[in-house]
């Protein structure tokens, strides 16, 4: 469960490492292009997080080299610039995802999980949480043996909650995750609430305990307790 992080902003790096460690990932840290280059072959990473704007080199180049060296690890580009061309170029070079700064850590984790699933899983993977089983590829969800019909957004939301189990997640992060940066945001928090309500109702109706806890109006927590 090794992750390589190439990021020149130390405080940001620290945050990412702390959060990912809580999720059980091990992190290899690199703060420059050069360090990143040296660390590329150190481990068999499940995912690499690469900042494009490095003091001593172009992150895109690192993406290219990383893709040649370790074809089976996922790459997520992190950039403060949200230029469409850069995004397209990054994805063309073999990156799996593109995250724009500033992002939510919960969103980062969800994306890491998703990328890791896509690059590592052989055959159908089943995620379980308490009584809930989800098959991300098929977009199906079961509570014990009972299939639950979820809409696309509800399914995404469930996966997001499962990726961030036992963490406090804010409604802003959910909105951003579900609708992206121009689609989400303002006005969509009400919709987050509605989606959550519907998801909760469907799961409880199928016989699952209510795992979605409301945290003092601050956010939500998906936990067994």
């Amino acid at each position, binding site marked *: 469960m090794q992750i390589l992080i190439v990021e020149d*902003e130390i*405080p*940001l790096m620290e*945050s*990412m490492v*702390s*959060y990912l460690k*809580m999720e059980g990932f091990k992190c290899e840290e690199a703060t420059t292009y050069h360090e990143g280059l040296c660390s590329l072959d150190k481990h068999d990473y499940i995912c690499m997080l690469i900042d494009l704007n490095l003091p001593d080199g172009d992150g895109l180049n690192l993406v290219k080299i990383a893709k040649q060296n370790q074809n089976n690890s996922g790459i997520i580009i992190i950039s*403060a*610039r*949200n*230029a*469409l061309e850069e995004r397209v170029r990054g994805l063309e070079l073999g990156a799996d995802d593109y995250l*724009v*700064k*500033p*992002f*939510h*850590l*919960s969103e980062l984790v969800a994306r890491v999980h998703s990328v890791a699933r896509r690059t590592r899983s052989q055959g159908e993977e089943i995620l379980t949480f308490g009584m809930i089983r989800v098959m991300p590829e098929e977009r199906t969800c079961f509570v014990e043996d009972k299939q639950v019909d979820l*809409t*696309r*957004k509800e399914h995404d939301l469930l996966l997001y909650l499962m990726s961030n189990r036992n*963490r*406090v997640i*804010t409604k*802003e*992060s959910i909105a951003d995750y579900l*609708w992206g*940066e*121009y*689609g989400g*945001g*303002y*006005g*969509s*928090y009400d*919709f987050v609430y*509605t*989606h959550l309500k*519907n998801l909760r109702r469907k799961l409880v109706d199928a016989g699952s305990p209510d795992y979605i806890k409301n*945290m*003092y*109006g*601050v*956010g939500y927590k998906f936990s067994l307790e």
Partner: protein
Amino acid sequence: MKLLTKTTLYIATLSMFLFFIMGIIFFQVLKNMSLSELNRELTRIQKVVDDVFPHFLGGQLSGLPGLDSISIQPASPGRVLKDQFGDTLMFDTRTHQFRTFRYLHFLADHGGNSYTVKLYKSTTPADKLVEQVTLLMTVMVILFLAGIFFLNRFIFANLWKDFFDTLDKLKQFDIVKEPLELGEPDVEEFMELKKVLERMTMRLSSDYKELQEYTDHTTHELQTPLAVIKTKTELLMQSSNLGPEEMQLIQSINSSANHLSRLNTTLALITRIESQQFTGRNKINLVHLLDDQLEKFQELIALREISVVRTYSDRKQTITMDQGLADIMITNLLKNAIVHNMDGGKILLEIKNGSFGISNEGAPLSFGEQELFKRFARDKKKTGNFGLGLSIVKKICDNYGFKISYNYKNQLHTFTILLPDNSSSF
């Protein structure tokens, strides 16, 4: 009023007035001159008449060359008469017309008797001359005026050519594009004008560019500290020994950082649209564009039980613009139509040849219509909304020369975008 018209009008008015006054004076002087000439002639004839007076009395003479008519009558004795000039109307037997005559009235003595003598001379030839000269003068004045008129036009076209060139270039000046380049005028004042203008626009362009760069850098540089605040508060939120109050404090910091970063991203987007950093020119089918973006909002629309009515009368209508901007434009319009709709409301989408429209049901605006496309225009009661979405749409439309208009009728807010001809159907 145009410069040329105004100059011509000034010249015409002034010269008409001057020529009118001059004409009157000229006419009077000419008239007086001809009169004194007649008087002189009559005085000369008077001397001749004095010399040959007996012949007149005797009847041997009845006229003299240069004289039209003469009358001699005995005067009452003791009467004193000074020589006297005057004008009179008399019937001319030759032309059978009344004509003006100049006369000289005087006393002549012969053989102890006094006679009053009147000498008449027709003024017609002199009047004719005055008339002809005046006519000639008038024609000359008209010709002169016409000459001035054309000369003025000619001078104008040549002299002010550089000025009008400069004006044309100024009209086309666009701060985002090339700096202003004017020709080399040979008139000193225009040369100065050119220098001043070039200096000004240069300054304007460089200021603008600097501002753009500044905004670009600031928004970019702001994202990193914002990212740190966001992630640190998110981490803090995960610690288990926090009470509800602390959690809410952290959440409000996190939420504000989110707000700030969204605002920043959006303003950066506007700056990038303004500085025309989106250069893609894709021919996009409007029906596909609209349906693709609609798909993303399908669940939201279903959640609020909004019904979407699509009237696509021209399914081939295309729009030529950057794909990314097209997505943003449609996304913002759709989002606006959903957020400001009512539960169970309607959205109408219409694509026609050369235009498309999007309408949604909803309460009337709580602010002025003219504020709608301005930055930060929003319903102050609704929170979590910047009021930047429509200003982005407007910016994008301006960028491509689309005309966007808004109206509110029968509880329907409608936005209509008119597309220019070059992106019509194929």
